[in-house]
């Protein structure tokens, strides 16, 4: 009986593993498509059915980073031979790199990518930091009207953000925050703060207040106790909150499209804007998207230990 049962369970397990593998493949398929397109020669990018086997090349990434124009006549062999290898790849495609003097002109992508990094990282750090302090306050002190305040904080999430896009744009224009880094940072903090406060409140409530009280009695100030005892305990919660806030800020499209156009534009509105100029070069767009996916993947991967690890509460068992 036991053998039958366990073999039954093993079968179910195998089935579950197969199911997970299939689901994983389905979820990874678009990512594979983007990644493979990024490494394809332009001619193979749009073949039907899609080309699976090809010689990978990085021409699309070179194109992504430099400003270039279509040449109307073939490049002369002497110039070709004198050009660096990466420029030759572009010449192979019948294009040439634009320069001011001797300096290669960069495309819009690197600066947009930097904007994305600056805005997403700054807004995440601030939203998570403010959320952590606020949550600690709500969790540890008797706050007058605590339930109402928490509800008010949550209520900022009850409207789809895009509803306020037009008034926000008008306000931003009036105070000169359009197309500034600080403008988008403030906006993304506002999006993420309620989420951050609520999530961190849950984690803070889980940390026994006895730890800090012991530290207070041991001769530490409330602030020292917070940084020495509470913060390390809350690391798991902070990591989880940071991942969510970062992804939200990194992926945000609508407000970035409305509020910025050049100086502070982030990658999400920039990448599709490249579709419009002439015949779309899908390999370049795929390369841009592929690079855009990397920071989130790296960030999540770096924090996976915190995300997965069970919370190690209770130096003394309950």
């Amino acid at each position, binding site marked *: 009986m036991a053998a039958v049962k366990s073999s039954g369970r093993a079968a179910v397990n195998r089935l579950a593993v197969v199911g997970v593998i299939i689901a994983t493949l389905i979820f990874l398929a678009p990512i594979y498509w983007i990644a493979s397109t990024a490494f394809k020669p332009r001619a193979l990018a749009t073949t039907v059915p899609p080309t699976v086997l090809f010689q990978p090349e990085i021409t699309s990434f070179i194109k992504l980073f430099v400003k270039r124009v279509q040449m109307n006549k073939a490049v002369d062999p002497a110039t070709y031979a004198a050009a660096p290898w990466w420029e030759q790849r572009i010449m192979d495609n019948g294009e040439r790199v634009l320069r001011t003097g001797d300096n290669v002109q960069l495309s819009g992508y690197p600066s947009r990518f930097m904007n994305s990094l600056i805005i997403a990282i700054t807004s995440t750090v601030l939203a998570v930091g403010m959320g952590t302090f606020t949550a600690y306050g709500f969790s540890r002190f008797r706050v007058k009207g605590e339930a109402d305040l928490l509800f008010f904080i949550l209520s900022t999430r009850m409207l789809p953000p895009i509803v306020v896009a037009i008034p926000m744009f008008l306000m931003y224009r009036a105070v000169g925050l359009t197309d500034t880094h600080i403008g988008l940072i403030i906006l993304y903090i506002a999006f993420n703060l309620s989420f951050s406060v609520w999530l961190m409140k849950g984690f803070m409530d889980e940390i026994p207040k*006895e730890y800090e009280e012991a530290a207070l009695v041991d001769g530490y100030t409330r602030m020292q106790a917070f940084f020495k005892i509470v913060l390390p305990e809350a690391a798991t919660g902070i990591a989880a909150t940071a991942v969510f806030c970062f992804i939200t800020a990194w992926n945000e499209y609508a407000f970035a499209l409305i509020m910025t156009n050049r100086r502070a534009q982030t990658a999400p509105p920039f990448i599709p804007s490249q579709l419009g100029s002439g015949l779309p070069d899908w390999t370049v767009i795929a390369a841009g998207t592929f690079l855009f996916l990397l920071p989130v993947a790296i960030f999540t991967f770096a924090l996976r230990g915190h995300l997965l690890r069970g919370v190690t509460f209770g130096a003394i*068992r309950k």
Partner: protein
Amino acid sequence: MAHVRLNGITKRFGAHTALENLDLEIEDGQFFVLLGPTGAGKTTTLRLIAGLEKPTAGSIEIGGVDVGDWGAAERDVALVLQQYSLYPRYTVRQNLEFPLKSNIRRMAQPDIDQRVARAAKTLRIEHLLERKVDRLSGGEMQRVSIGRAIVRSPRIFLMDEPLSNLDAKLRETLRSELKDLQMKLGATFLFVTHDQIEAMSMGDKVGVLNDGRLAQVGTPYEIYHHPRDTYVAGFVGSPAMNLLPADLLGDRMRVPSGAIEFAVGPALRARLGRSSGPITLGIRAENVHLDPAGSIEARVWGVENHGVEKIVTLKTGDCLFKATMPATIATAIDEPMRLSFDQSRLHAFDAATGLNLSLEGRALEAAE
């Protein structure tokens, strides 16, 4: 080390009154146990002394100085809790060093090492020093948290049921260790517990808390043998004192709910003064004796074996009471027995107020 005095402490949490006009004095070097059931205000008292809560009214003096405005850090008290008293993620050594590394102490590393080593030796946890605290057993954890208290040589040790989460054997061991430690250090201890055995076995003085008020303060002997009221009488002692509603008329004592009636001897009569009428009769199980000539007849209702002795529940009429008997005596359920109460150990309490009516009880009250 210091003398602690609470003057008229009241503490309210919103509408709930945790402590009401509490006066308490702990002498220097005393092992003071605060005993009471859950919710009596023991932990609140301790947190007030630690500076983790502010009293609604009243003042707290440590070493003769009013510490009302002092924060927890400045009071120089040590706290040992029932649980969560160690910092997770730290090793045992880091936990022991933690209080010494605080800015208000500014201790040099060699000093710290020396103190940690001494505390570890005292508590026999030297082999655990480099271990993470989540790898410790319950008893080891409580040893370490006591260690974290003693490295500082604080003025007062505050302990909030530190033994309650441990299993019975370990609790017994740590109980005597803790008492030894207190005597060796000559330190002032305030120990909070709901366990009357801990209170009786460790305390120099015991304060019994009842719903935010001190019911009685005294030595374990006084608490046990001269309970001030029915609350203390019923709370302290295992099994609890038998408390039977009775009528005292002249020199006759009668328990109306059962066939208990006996003549009050002259010694007891003198002890009770002029009181008469309805009272609550209190008699401990060990003072109920088998007596072929006894005036009380009851039947065996239940038996609890405790090794050398057994606790027999007896029934007469609607009245149940307990008696301690040697384990060798045969006790079959429903078997009739003749018994008598030891009148020198008998207590009478006022039926309405619950206060002890015996003269020494009153003398005790007058003395306070």
